[in-house]
């Protein structure tokens, strides 16, 4: 028994997040029984990744505050202020808390024509698929599950999102939801292939699909090595998250938010954050593929957290850029979106692939 615990502790202790700044604090911990173990457990890299960063805490906080950042920034660009009056000295920073609590406490209406079980299941299940890819995303050096096939796995898991959106639309059994669902399905085909090719181009370029290795191989960031692939990936991400100008499936003015027209209460709350979840994951992926992941000048005292810091900063930068598109672009039509996906983006993705091959060839030579 003790052996097992010891082996476990060994594993845990061998893979700790090291933070020099709080080390003195940690040293004093053993005086309190059990807490030492708990802290050690928390600082165990896989658990840290899962619970703190890039997992639940940072992810959750992103969902809670990123819409606020988006609304404030868009508001600023639009000559106004965005959420403000709720704790006005902080500029309404907890606006999303109020919104989400309101959704939580509000009635969930299941209308007569809905497929009741699926209608209720899908929003909650959709939150699960947000967590799965997070297991494979490293923040700096911290990752929950390290595998050489992480990128592929993440891409595969990200592809689940549209399926859920299709599910919402199907379960809603409404005309607008139906049209929105069909559009979502179309768009899915439009962006997925160039998007994956762009990712593959980077895998070829780095010669690995292990995110940690990728980060270490980006002495020159990927975005400079292969800007074309970066562009395709970015546009793909915008399409995948349904951002402007590709907010085609759930276009508010045409289809009343398409697939989720019938959702209310917390079910809608979960759907509302779905695109932010997806945006977070894709931004993280973009950070890893093109911006060097958690690499950056080490900040004294933070240790492993330094990587986490840079990772979060870069992710947020990508996320902000992604979401600021809302302030700049109107919406494409479905056929234009498809055309963009199928021709220029596909061509560009292949060019990106070619660039990668050239870069690899040059490196080899």
């Amino acid at each position, binding site marked *: 028994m003790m052996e097992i615990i010891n082996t476990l502790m060994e594993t845990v202790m061998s893979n700790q997040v090291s933070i020099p700044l709080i080390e003195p604090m940690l040293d004093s911990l053993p005086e309190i029984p059990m807490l030492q173990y708990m802290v050690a457990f928390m600082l165990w890299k896989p658990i840290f990744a899962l619970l703190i960063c890039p997992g639940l805490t940072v992810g959750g906080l992103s969902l809670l505050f990123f819409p606020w950042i988006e609304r404030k920034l868009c508001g600023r660009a639009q*000559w106004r202020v965005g959420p403000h009056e709720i704790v006005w000295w902080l500029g309404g920073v907890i606006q999303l808390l109020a919104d989400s609590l309101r959704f939580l406490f509000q009635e969930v209406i299941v209308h007569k024509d809905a497929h009741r079980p699926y209608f209720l299941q899908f929003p909650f299940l959709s939150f699960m698929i947000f967590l799965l890819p997070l297991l494979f995303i490293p923040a700096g050096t911290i990752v929950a599950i390290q595998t050489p096939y992480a990128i592929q796995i993440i891409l595969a898991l990200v592809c689940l999102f549209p399926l859920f959106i299709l599910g919402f639309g199907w379960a809603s059994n409404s005309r607008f939801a139906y049209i929105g669902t069909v559009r979502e399905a179309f768009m899915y085909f439009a962006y997925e292939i160039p998007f994956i090719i762009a990712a593959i181009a980077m895998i070829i370029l780095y010669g690995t699909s292990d995110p940690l290795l990728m980060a270490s191989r980006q002495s020159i960031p990927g975005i400079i090595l292969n800007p074309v692939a970066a562009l395709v990936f970015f546009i793909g991400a915008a399409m995948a998250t349904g951002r402007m100008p590709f907010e085609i499936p759930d276009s508010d003015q045409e289809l009343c938010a398409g697939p989720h027209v019938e959702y209310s209460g917390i079910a809608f709350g979960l759907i509302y954050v779905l695109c932010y979840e997806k945006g977070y994951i894709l931004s993280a992926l973009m950070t890893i593929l093109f911006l060097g992941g958690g690499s950056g000048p080490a900040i004294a005292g933070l240790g492993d957290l330094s990587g986490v810091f840079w990772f979060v900063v870069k992710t947020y930068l990508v996320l902000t850029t992604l979401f600021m598109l809302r302030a700049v672009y109107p919406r494409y039509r479905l056929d234009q979106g498809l055309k963009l996906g199928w021709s220029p983006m596909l061509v560009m993705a292949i060019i990106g692939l070619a660039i990668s091959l050239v870069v690899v060839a040059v490196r080899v030579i």
Partner: protein
Amino acid sequence: MKMKSMKKVVGPEYNLGDKIKTNVYAVGVAMQESVYPHTATVFYPRERKKMPDNFRGFILFDPDKCISCFNCSFVCPANAIRMKEAPNKRYYPTVDYGRCIFCHFCIDSCSGGALKATKIHDVAYKDMDAMFTPTEEMIELPEIIREDKKYVEYEIKEDDLHLKRTKGEDYLFVEVPPPKEIPMVSTCIDPGSCIGCRVCADVCEHGAISASVEDGGTLRMKIDTDECTGCGLCVKECSMQILMLNKLERE
């Protein structure tokens, strides 16, 4: 002259370079504005936009100046103003804000200057019955909930809009001088056709028209030109249409 001054407008034709350029412009504006925003927001309720003095808001009433001419009630397009008999048997206006459209035709029809405009316009009523405002409540400026600490004015500086903020409360009511006096007086143009019904005397709110039966079976009608306000009610009500408003010259 007609055709020459037509300008043909053609929408832009984009090539790839234009597309990139316009994309850059659009992103550029967004970036520039997020860094140096030209915010145009008034933070109501914590501050309030200063409305000009001629702003058309809630209506106040001064019974001393009212001549009970009914003009406000007659001209009201929404029939929001209805006259109510006061204890002194005069008719005074009441306003139903559930119908009032704030066109202020009433104020523009009030020759005595009894109706006055305020700048109150942000009010929420709990129930519809309270929206009816009797005369008694129109005399003094009502209190409204005010959370404003500053007031804002729009200003043009360097060819752009700026919001000028000043600490303090904006006033809600400004006294304006009464309208120009154009004295009119009612006269009879065809005394022979008078049927002696005395409706004019009944309808006159100022007792300017007197009717007294003298012995010998004659009725003596008299319009007191000093009392007459020239409101025209008698002219309107006379069933024989023998009264007329005439301009009065005071010496």
